[in-house]
C-alpha cells in the first residue's frame, strides 16, 4: 500500500524562503525526497532551476551538504563521492552510517549533456540515486527544448512546436541493468516517497525521474502545478512505473491504463490547458497535430505494456 499523506515524516530538508518560483514542482518534489532520505545524505546539483532556487552564497535553502558540479558530470561526480566515502569508511576515517549520495538534475542534465556520464555510472552500478526532475525543457535558461520536450511543444528554440517525440529516458536507464528505476510525479507524493525509500535501501545505482510541471515553461496558471501533474498521468502522457531488478510494475493509476481497465483521458484537455501546446493548436492543422501527440502517447503505452512482460 502506498504511504498515506498523514504518515509522511515531519522532517523538512527544503527550507522556507528559498529562491524557487511560486508553485515550483522541483521544490515540491524535493520536500518529499527529503522526507524519505532524511538528513544523512549528500546532494549533488548540476546547473538547473534547483541551483537558482538554493540561495546565493553564503545562504543555502536545503538542509544537506550540497555540491554544485559541472553540467555534464552528475554521474561521474556522484561516483567520486560515493567511492570516497566508502573507502574513507573502510579506512576508519568516517564514523556512523554511510550517507545516501544523490544527484538532483533537470532533464537537460540527464537526457542531454549529462547522459554519457550517467550511462557510465549506471554501467558501473555505482552506489547512488540519480533524480531527474523533468520539466520537459531548459526552464532555468528561459525554456529551450531538451531531449525531454514532447512533440508539438513550443519552446523558445522550437517556436513552431517540436518536431520529434521525447525519448524514454527511464527505460534507457533500465536497460543498463541497474537494480532500481522508477518514475513519479508531484501529484502522487506517497508514491514518490515509497519509491525514494526503496531506492535508499537498495545498493547500487538507482534512477528516479519525477515529472515536474513548470507553470512558466508549460504556460498554465501558477496554482495548477499539481493538477497538471495529475492530468499528465490520467491522460497517459506520463506513466508511473518502477522496476526492481529489471521487473517492471505499473503504479496506480497508470496500472489501470496499462491493464485496459481504464481508458486514458483524451489528451486534448491536457494540451489545451497548457500554452506551450494550445498556442500552436489554432490553425487548420490543429487536429492532425493533436493526433500526432496522441499517437506518441499511445505508442508509449503499447510499448511499455509489452516491455513489462519481458522478465528474466
Amino acid at each position: 500500500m502506498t504511504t498515506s499523506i498523514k504518515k509522511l515524516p515531519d522532517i523538512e530538508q527544503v527550507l522556507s524562503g528559498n529562491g524557487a518560483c511560486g508553485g515550483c514542482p522541483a521544490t515540491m518534489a524535493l520536500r518529499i525526497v527529503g522526507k524519505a532520505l532524511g538528513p544523512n545524505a549528500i546532494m549533488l546539483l548540476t546547473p538547473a532551476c534547483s541551483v537558482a532556487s538554493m540561495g546565493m552564497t553564503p545562504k543555502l535553502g536545503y538542509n544537506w551538504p550540497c555540491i554544485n558540479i559541472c553540467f555534464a558530470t552528475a554521474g561521474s561526480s556522484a561516483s567520486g563521492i560515493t567511492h570516497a566515502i566508502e573507502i574513507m569508511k573502510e579506512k576508519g576515517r568516517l564514523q556512523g552510517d554511510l550517507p545516501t549520495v544523490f544527484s538532483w538534475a533537470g532533464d537537460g542534465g540527464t537526457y542531454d549533456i549529462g547522459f554519457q556520464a550517467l550511462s557510465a555510472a549506471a554501467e558501473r552500478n555505482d552506489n547512488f540515486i540519480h533524480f531527474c526532475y523533468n520539466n520537459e525543457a531548459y526552464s532555468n535558461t528561459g525554456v529551450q527544448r531538451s531531449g525531454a520536450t514532447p512533440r508539438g511543444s513550443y519552446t523558445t528554440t522550437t517556436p513552431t512546436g517540436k518536431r520529434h517525440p521525447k525519448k524514454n529516458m527511464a527505460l534507457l536507464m533500465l536497460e543498463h541493468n541497474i537494480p532500481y528505476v522508477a518514475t513519479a510525479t508531484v501529484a502522487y507524493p506517497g508514491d514518490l516517497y515509497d519509491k525514494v525509500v526503496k531506492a535508499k535501501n537498495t545498493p547500487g545505482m538507482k534512477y528516479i525521474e519525477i515529472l515536474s510541471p513548470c507553470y512558466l515553461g508549460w504556460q498554465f496558471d501558477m496554482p495548477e502545478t499539481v493538477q497538471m501533474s495529475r492530468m499528465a498521468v490520467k491522460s497517459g502522457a506520463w506513466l508511473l512505473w518502477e522496476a526492481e531488478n529489471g521487473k517492471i510494475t505499473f503504479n496506480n493509476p497508470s496500472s489501470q491504463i496499462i491493464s485496459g481497465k481504464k481508458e486514458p483521458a483524451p489528451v486534448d484537455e491536457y494540451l489545451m490547458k497548457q500554452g506551450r501546446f494550445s498556442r500552436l493548436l489554432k490553425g487548420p492543422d490543429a487536429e492532425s497535430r493533436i493526433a500526432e501527440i496522441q499517437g506518441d502517447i499511445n505508442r508509449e503505452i503499447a510499448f511499455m505494456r509489452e516491455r513489462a512482460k519481458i522478465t528474466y
Partner: protein
Amino acid sequence: MKSVTKEHRPISWPTKGSGGDTGSWRTHRPVVDIKKCTKCQFCWVYCPEAVIEREEITIDYQYCKGCGVCALECPVGAISMEKEE
C-alpha cells in the same frame, strides 16, 4: 602567508530565507477557514515552500510566496486566496 580557512572556499550554510523574505513576492494570500478544514493535509504536502504547519494549518506568511496551490488542492475549499493590500 595567511592561513587557509574555509572562507577561501565558496561555502554556504543552511538557513531559512535564503531567497530573502519571499512573502513579499505575494500578490494574493492564502487564508484558512479552519472550521471547514478536515485535516487531510493536502495543503501541507503540496506546499512547495514548506510554510504550512500540518496539524494546526497555520501559514508562515514571512515566506509564503502565494502560489495558490494549497487553495486549489484543498478538497473542501477551506483555503481562499485574498488580494494583498
